[in-house]
């Protein structure tokens, strides 16, 4: 929680600087930020996400030095990066695998917030900034995926921009304006590259605001009870720096496993076929991290309704703080809501599965993927629009510990706080 700054400049030069631009103070305050001592590993994904962003920008800037944004050369230039640029194979797979890892981490981060009620007061703005980041991330990944100019790049871009054409009245002109022509072509590739280069820096700026907001409200924690007494918190450094670093390293091992042993496994083989506007691939499927939304898009026969649903699926996240009426943050103390939450996660996986399959195919017991995706879509919206608003009013939450310190005293497996005016570093 942003309390008093404890930073004291030690040298005259530092004092001079502090009076003009207190940037060192800002860093020092970050390091000493009082952080709830009971945070579990679900809270390490924020740090992991920062690393992901840095990795994407660093590898992306290097790719940008060799990549050629032209329909005749884009595909070949990526092959050249993989074959001839020194360590180009490493940069290219880092960037491609990194995008998947980024989404893996962001989904963990979002599910964490949903379970522990981190979106509730006073963290609404923090949450909304997070939703914005997620939105821009999706745009960035979509734009980036067109750049290698494989079959999925081209046809994915064609399908997705095609949906803008379904917007009433202005649809067609909107679509042409986005594409820079009547179809996905060189003009499209150029503007997509330009925007793909731009948006990560928008994400970086939004992340800055996100963290600023975090430092104003402080972190939520697994029991969702705000910190009250001094023993509830620990200084961020060294307690949480070391914990985050451990988690980052474990995450990097998963990253490295894919990077070095299965670099193309998360993508589509079709994207290693050069884009051919005359040859539609039999199955146009987006990257795995878009599959749930793709399933929602296809859950209704009407194109426009599909788009509205898909947009709604993300829009609903923005207003979630006002949809959930419960005053209890953590689902640990919400015996009923907890089960609805687990079903929600399950339904997200179901949607992902539906997104990967052909709608008319049989999922199980004669139920088509089309119907299955409708059921899951109804649950998705029902969870936010019906279950959470009503449950907050009728559910009887379990008794919550009075404070973080108390909850630790009640559970003997954590270090006891009484002895612990945390020694700072």
């Amino acid at each position, binding site marked *: 929680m942003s309390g008093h700054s404890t930073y004291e400049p030690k040298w005259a030069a530092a004092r001079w600087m502090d009076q003009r631009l207190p940037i060192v103070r800002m860093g020092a305050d970050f390091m000493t930020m009082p952080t709830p001592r009971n945070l579990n590993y679900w809270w390490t994904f924020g740090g992991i996400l920062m690393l992901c962003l840095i990795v994407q920008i660093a590898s992306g800037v290097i790719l940008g030095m060799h990549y050629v944004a032209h329909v005749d050369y884009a595909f070949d230039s990526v092959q050249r990066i993989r074959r001839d640029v020194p360590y180009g194979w*490493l940069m290219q797979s880092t960037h491609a695998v990194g995008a998947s890892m980024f989404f893996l981490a962001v989904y963990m981060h979002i599910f964490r917030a949903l379970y522990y009620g981190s979106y509730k007061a006073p963290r609404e703005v923090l949450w909304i900034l997070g939703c914005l980041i997620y939105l821009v991330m999706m745009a960035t990944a979509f734009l980036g995926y067109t750049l290698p100019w494989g079959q999925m790049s081209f046809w994915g871009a064609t399908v997705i921009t095609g949906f803008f054409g379904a917007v009433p009245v202005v649809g067609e002109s909107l679509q042409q304006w986005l594409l820079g022509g009547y179809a996905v072509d060189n003009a499209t590739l150029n503007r997509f590259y330009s925007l793909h280069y731009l948006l990560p820096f928008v994400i970086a700026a939004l992340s800055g605001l996100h963290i600023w907001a975090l430092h104003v409200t402080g972190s939520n924690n697994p029991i969702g009870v705000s910190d009250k007494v001094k023993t509830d918190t620990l200084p961020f450094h060294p307690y949480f720096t070391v914990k985050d670093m*451990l988690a980052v390293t474990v995450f990097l091992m998963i990253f490295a496993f894919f990077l*070095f042993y299965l670099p193309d496994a*998360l993508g*589509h083989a079709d994207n290693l076929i050069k884009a051919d506007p005359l040859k539609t691939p039999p199955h146009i499927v987006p990257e795995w991290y878009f599959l749930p939304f793709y399933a929602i898009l296809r859950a209704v026969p009407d194109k426009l309704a599909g788009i509205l649903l898909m947009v709604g699926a993300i829009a609903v996240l923005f207003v979630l703080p006002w949809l959930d009426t419960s005053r209890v943050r953590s689902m640990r103390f919400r015996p009923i809501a907890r089960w609805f939450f687990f079903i929600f996660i399950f339904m997200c996986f179901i949607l992902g599965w539906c997104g*990967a399959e052909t709608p008319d195919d049989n999922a199980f017991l004669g139920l088509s993927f089309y119907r299955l995706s409708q059921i899951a879509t109804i649950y998705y919206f029902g969870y936010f629009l019906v279950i959470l608003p009503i449950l907050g009013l009728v559910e009887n939450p379990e008794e919550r510990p009075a404070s973080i310190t108390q909850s630790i005293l009640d559970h003997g497996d954590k*270090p006891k706080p009484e002895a612990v005016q945390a020694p700072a570093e």
Partner: protein
Amino acid sequence: MALKTVRNLMIAGGVAVASLTGIAIASGGSVADGYEMVHKHWHWSGVTGTYDQEAMQRGYNVYAQVCRSCHNLDHLAFRHLGDKGGPFYDERYENPNDNPLVKNIAAEYEVIDVNPEDGSEISRPGIPADMFPPVYRNTAEAAYVNNGAIPPDLSVMVKARNNGADYVYNLMLAYDHPQPDSVVTSSGQYYNPVMEGGKIAMGPQLQPQVGVFEYQSETEGQNPPEATVEQMAADVVEFLAWSADPKLAERKSAGMMSMVYLLILALLLWLSYKRIWARLKPKT
């Protein structure tokens, strides 16, 4: 608490890897009409597996003598053949442009160039720095010669199909599978159950008649296997697998180093974490 944390981390990691790998594997290809895909054990798969140089050389021969009449290797230059990990790599020639085998191969191809004197178009023997020259002047010619179908580039083929190595291997061998009535082939089309839809515009390429060609050894002391259809198919796949993923050996060895490094780092961080958080324990 210590064990619990380690366990949780391991579970989390395991779930992440398993689910992402699941996604990857679930996207495998399907095959029609009761044809059973032969799943060969490709020895370059696995954590340490790399390509076999002699098999790649034989595979190159198959390419040059059979596939080359229709298919190009768009993304390969001759010099790539002599790169480290490549089929004709020779440690005496760190620079593949000096490698005599590579030079000879390049010289067997005619490359279109411009005469610097008068600007006229000339044809000259290739040099290691040249890319493999296209087989056809343009796609129209390619389609004209091949009944309207265009033979695709083979240099990334093994990556451009699900389970690409198995795919190409089976594609070569599946022509004699009996054609069901449901698949109707027109003239210039052949039945092949491995292709989506069962129809392909490429006839069977690797024929069982002995004497299509025999493997001859490029390097001394080598004992080439008999050029059976299966052997030729496996060898050409080995060559094409390399051409689609030439950095495989380099990548895997870097992977091993990174994993060991990260593991040690994780252990050290784990110990630091224990130590720092131990300060919070009441002193007894």
